[in-house]
């Protein structure tokens, strides 16, 4: 029980992560292809993202999980709609597309 370990009004996550704003110029769509995203001085699209500090590394406070379960930190993603530049048969136009965005870092148990 971690809350009692740290006292009230404090929270500790099993995986460390960092948050930052991202102004991506291109991104990965859900079909795993890359596409340009509108981001210039006039039109900015900022996204707050959260990335694992140590992806695939053991989670903190994880030493008493059952044997044969390996707790590791895993990057999770969400799909976000962003204005992007489409190339439809040579014509460039701007449209909404959903892009894969790092959303948080979670501890998962891998079964060995």
């Amino acid at each position: 029980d971690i809350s009692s370990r740290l006292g009230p009004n404090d929270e500790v996550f099993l995986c460390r992560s960092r948050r930052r704003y991202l102004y991506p110029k291109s991104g990965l769509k859900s079909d795993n292809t890359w596409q340009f995203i509108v981001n210039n001085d006039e039109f900015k699209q900022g996204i707050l993202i959260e990335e694992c500090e140590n992806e695939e590394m053991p989670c903190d406070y994880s030493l008493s999980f059952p044997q044969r379960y390996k707790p590791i930190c895993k990057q999770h993603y969400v799909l976000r709609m962003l204005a992007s530049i489409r190339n439809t048969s040579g014509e460039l136009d701007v449209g909404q597309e959903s892009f894969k965005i790092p959303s948080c870092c979670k501890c998962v148990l891998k079964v060995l």
Partner: protein
Amino acid sequence: QAGETAFGRDECNELSVSSPCQCAPSMAEYEIYCPANAYNVFPKFRLAIRPNSNVQIECNLTDANEYKQLPPLRIGEIERVQIQRCPLPGHTPIAGILEHLGIRSPKMLIFESDNLGVNITRRHLDRLQNLKRLRFTSRRFTYIPADFLADLRNLSWLDLRANIVELPAHLFDNLENLESLELGSNGLKHLPHGVFSRMPKLRHLNLWSNQLHNLTKHDFEGASSVVDVDLHANGIEQLPRDVFSLLTNLTEINLSANHFRSLPGGLFEHNKQLRQVRLLNNRVPLSTLPARLFANQPELRVLLLRCDLETLPSDLLEQSTEITNISLRDNYLSTLPAKLLEHQTNLLSLDLSNNKLTYLPDAFFEHTTKLVDLNLAENMLTDISSDIFSKLEKLETLNMNNNLVKNIASNAFAANTALLHISMEHNLIDLQQPLLGSILQEQLNSPFSHLASLQSLNLRNNSIMFIYRDWNFNLINLQELDLSYNNISSLIYEDLQFLSKSNLFVNITHNQISRINFYPQLPVMPDGEVSTSVLRMDLNDNPLVCDCTLLWFVQLVRGAHVPDYAKQFKFDTDRLTCSQPHNLQDLPVRLVPPKELICSIGSAEEPGQRQCPRGCRCWVRTFDKALVIKCHEGNLTKVPELPTLYDNLHIMELHMDNNTLLGLPAAHSPGYANVTSLHLAGNNLTHIDVDRLPPNLKHLDVRRNHLQALNTTVLGFLNRTMPRRSLMLSGNPWICNCEAKPLLLFTQSNYERIGDRGEMLCMDAEMPTRMAELSTNDICPEEKGV
């Protein structure tokens, strides 16, 4: 007072204008990036300020000199400061950073970094003597100087996690206010003697994930105020019997994830305040526990034991009467001593799931009369006797999923009237009483008949064949009944008459249901009581036979039939298809045309009982209550002996097209007298007499016969009885002379009745003439007057 307000919107705006940083409100926080516009890269500093509460500082620095790029701020009173991924500010105090940001009197400091730059010293904590809480963590091996904490006399909570291998003996000497000490996840091999002895208020001691293999009672000298100790994941193989003897106020201990092969008897002999013991995920098998290990513990409440246990001593818990929760799940227990729980009169929850239990003694729960929650899932239990649960009058939840239960005594649950949830999926339950015939089985009550409070009954994946009437009538609080993957073969309306006051959901998918018999209407309840609850039933994935007996169910599903009782049901049938007959196979029930629902009638051998004449096919069509007899192309010269019409049928169709009939039977012959529809096209009839026409005839097809005339009595009969478009008369060699005058008049005045009037031909002329084109004068000129 001006200048004393906390960091806010104005300060944030000003910062973006007057400094190289960028500040923006984000939810309830202000986020500052320095330098600004560092798109897509990590800025040197990220600050998140929650005014009057906490400040988070994240760095991407290699050199402590870069701290100079932090903007001077006046953040004000802050409870908690969290510094992450930052180097130490050289050999200067951390307080210098806080002062630069105008952070005053934090109560808590968290400094987490794997990139310190220099060794940590007492000087780094200068001017932080008001701190109540400190966490310092680093993944690097960190040398901690003995005087590191010398100035933090107010500290009540300390978390040091920095791969500390050697703890200086007097590190904690000044921390007389410390209550919580977290030393988990270091590399400590031993504890310096008396290291805890100058902390009279210490209550919480966490030593998990170290290498404290050889603990002795001296390690805890002076720690008598400690109430909980966490020693999990220390690689401990054995403990001296008296190791905890000085921890006389201990209430909670965690010994999980160690390497115990045995534990000494009397390990907790001196810990009479003990409330909770955790021994989970021991890394090697610990097949049993010493006698009386948890006996005589007046305060013990919770035991969590998972360490490959195979047996338990019968006196393990003796006299420990206050235990409320025991988890022994995920061990290898094959049975348990009958007296194990003899003194656990206050036990509320027992988890024995995922063991190898094949049998429990009948007296096992004799004294646990307050038990509320019992989990026996994933074992190999085969029987539920009438005694085993007979004292559990408070039991609310019983889980016996994934066992081998076959036999349940009929009064097994007679005492458990408080039960709310029973889950017994994946067993071998058929509820059949041996020695009783299969007809009787359905009339019997199930073992659950006493459970009027029951809300959910999960019998998924067993071998049940019936819906028992006590489920309908006794389980009046049932909300969920899972009977999927059983052997139920048919449903009648009565099976669905649940008296439950709740909106019950019954899952009956993946059974063997081939028939569903419903009534068109039901008698109104004598007391006029109308049930307002709705039964939802999932009927998908059953091998339905789509014959005449399914009519009312099909009409109900199609919404074509809406009897009063329909609003009590909601059927899930989107994946319910016909398995038979062949022509309807795989058709979803809601798409079956109700006229296609027929039942064949066989031909009995005994002529007197013959239901369907030899050489004919007969079926019942419930949609319009018809008996259909088809004797096509049989070279029949006369109408065979016909069955009589059942009382509940209204229509009898006789199809004898394309035979060689020469005449018809007497109108009142048994069977034939009931015919309402005669299909006789393509036969050899030369004349029809009225005493050969069944009295209730509504349809007559005599196309393609050898009829030349119809006499006036027949025409009178037809005029009286036949409805619209019910006659087919073409294809006959009609003779159109004076005697045919009544026939011609009949065809003229019964235009609507004769479907093929336009094709009737007079064959006695030189050229066949359409009867419709003739007038009476044409066929029978009136005698010319003299």
